[in-house]
């Protein structure tokens, strides 16, 4: 077993594009759930709409690249308004039901045969990311000895982490303001906020839209990085991974989702590498106990276990404050 190899795989993933996409999705969820108390179970829908907003406008409608980027921001905004108007006046559970359904509907529509001409069916869309790749200022990749990234990856990672940093900065600036105070108060008790003369519905809508747009940026980044969008990327699994990352890091904290996402992918890749080395030929775990194929999925079981233990012993996440956690299991 090569511990260095495990660490290398884990670090590569923890700093890689997946961590960026889920960090952005989780930053959005943090605004929804961590600060405002909105239960959005359809963040994957916002991410998908961001990605497709870019791809569809460039590939299907032949719009210029910059307009595609604009659409990647506008589309989640529109989705937030459509979902929010009927549901934000209702109790939090209804938003959860509507958002999870909406995200699934979107995924099926994007992948449907009937809409193949617009959304590209299950093969998705590609051929829109040229301007992004052309803008790459790096002439070569980077080799840090321990981990290395190719030229294209280096460019995407630069853009991605800058995007994450900007979003964190925005969230920090907003949440220290009176606006953020109103959001956190809505999380605690809507009626109290109403009784003090604040338009709760408008604030919830702003929060839903902002979190949705940041999730959409995650989709836009994924679309740029992969140079293709495929509907199967945006399943409910994406939402729940984002939630896992958020809870891991700490909801209601600016850096919580980022730390959570990095750690989440570090664990996923690290555990994956550990078990694939340990099981099968040459591994120390006999095949009677674990086969090769089992080794590739056992990490998800371990991760689920880790999140359960986290919820029991440290419900505030890694950097949360126990006195002001958004959820309390007990």
């Amino acid at each position: 077993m090569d511990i260095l190899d495990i660490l290398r795989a884990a670090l590569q993933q923890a700093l890689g594009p997946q961590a960026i996409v889920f960090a952005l999705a989780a930053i959005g969820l943090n605004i929804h759930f961590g600060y405002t108390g909105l239960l959005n179970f359809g963040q994957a829908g916002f991410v998908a709409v961001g990605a497709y907003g870019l791809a569809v406008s460039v590939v299907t409608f032949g719009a210029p690249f910059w307009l595609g980027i604009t659409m990647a921001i506008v589309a989640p905004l529109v989705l937030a308004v459509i979902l929010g108007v009927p549901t934000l006046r209702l109790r939090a559970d209804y938003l959860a039901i509507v958002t999870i359904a909406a995200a699934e509907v979107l995924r099926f529509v994007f992948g449907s045969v009937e809409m193949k001409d617009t959304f590209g069916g299950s093969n998705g869309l590609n051929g829109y990311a040229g301007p992004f790749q052309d803008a790459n200022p790096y002439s070569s990749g980077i080799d840090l000895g321990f981990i290395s990234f190719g030229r294209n990856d280096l460019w995407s990672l630069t853009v991605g982490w800058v995007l994450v940093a900007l979003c964190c900065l925005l969230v920090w600036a907003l949440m220290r303001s009176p606006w953020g105070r109103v959001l956190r108060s809505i999380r605690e008790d809507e009626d109290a906020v109403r009784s003090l003369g604040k338009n709760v519905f408008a604030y919830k809508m702003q929060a839903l839209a902002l979190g949705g747009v940041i999730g959409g940026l995650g989709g836009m980044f994924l679309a740029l990085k992969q140079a293709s969008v495929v509907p199967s990327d945006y399943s409910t699994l994406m939402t729940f991974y984002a939630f896992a990352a958020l809870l891991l890091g700490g909801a209601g904290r600016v850096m919580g989702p980022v730390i959570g996402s990095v750690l989440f992918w570090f664990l996923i890749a690290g555990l994956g590498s550990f078990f694939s080395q340990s099981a099968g030929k040459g591994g120390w775990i006999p095949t009677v106990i674990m086969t090769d194929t089992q080794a590739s999925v056992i990490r998800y079981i371990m991760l689920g276990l880790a999140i359960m233990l986290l919820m029991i012993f440290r419900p505030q996440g890694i950097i949360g404050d126990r006195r002001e956690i958004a959820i309390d299991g007990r």
Partner: protein
Amino acid sequence: MDADMTDQTSTETNAVASKTGPAGLVGASTEPGSKKSDPIIVADKITRTFGGLTAVDVDHVEIQRGAITALIGPNGAGKTTFFNLLTGFDQPNTGSWSLEGKSLKGVAPYKVARLGMVRTFQLTKVLAKLTVIENMRLGATGQKGERFWAAPFKFLWGKQEDEVTKKADDLLARFLLDKKREDFAGSLSGGQRKLLEMARALMVDPEVVMLDEPMAGVNPALKQSLLGHVKSLRDEGRTVLFVEHDMDMVRDISDWVIVMAQGKIVAEGTADSVMADQRVIDAYLGAHHDTDLSELDEEVLEAEVEAELEGDIVQEEDSK
């Protein structure tokens, strides 16, 4: 309507000078739904039904500006429902009501608050995971930093935030909560939460303060200071309407008392005249309400329970 004034021995000549405030109540009729000299809230034909139950059925009521009005009545009389209706947290089936002549029909609760009518809740609603000072700051109105586009830029709202904080600190000191400033509101005791909620409501600078059972669960010493606060609200020219079961408090501070039973207003008047009213004694107070002996508490309670049971029976018969 001045006819039944003869029994009001406390009529003083100098009090007639003003129409506003408690002085303006001198000479007001004690019939349910009587006219006031300077009403700030007027409600007409308000009904609210839950299924087959008529929770509120108020024909006409006026609340005097600048005075402390108590709303009393047995459990289930519809006091809190009436509060909810007035503040927009619930909408009545029929009726109209107004604040300073402006109709509040169909107006959202947050707009009612902005118009100057702010309420507290029977079950306190403090924002548990915010600090006491943040709870207070939330109450301030017209904050520039509460607008999305201005929020990220501290130089736009920093100065106003300082002013808000100063006002909040003054109020906290008045309500003896300044030592709890940085604590999470969730760590406060029940009585302290009542205080915080009242102080927070005052951050709005309300014209009318509506308190739903401000004394429930508050210890005697704190009660005294709360009484003082409520009186000082009146001295500042604000109108206070409160629901309360503590008759000592009602007697002590209210300028006017409105009695509700089974959704209707059954009596009005000064605390003394209302408490002498046989209907009120029967429906709510019980025969021993004036005897200040603790061993009689049980009897009072029994009488209350009995009255309530009778009320239920009457209601059942009505619905048949």
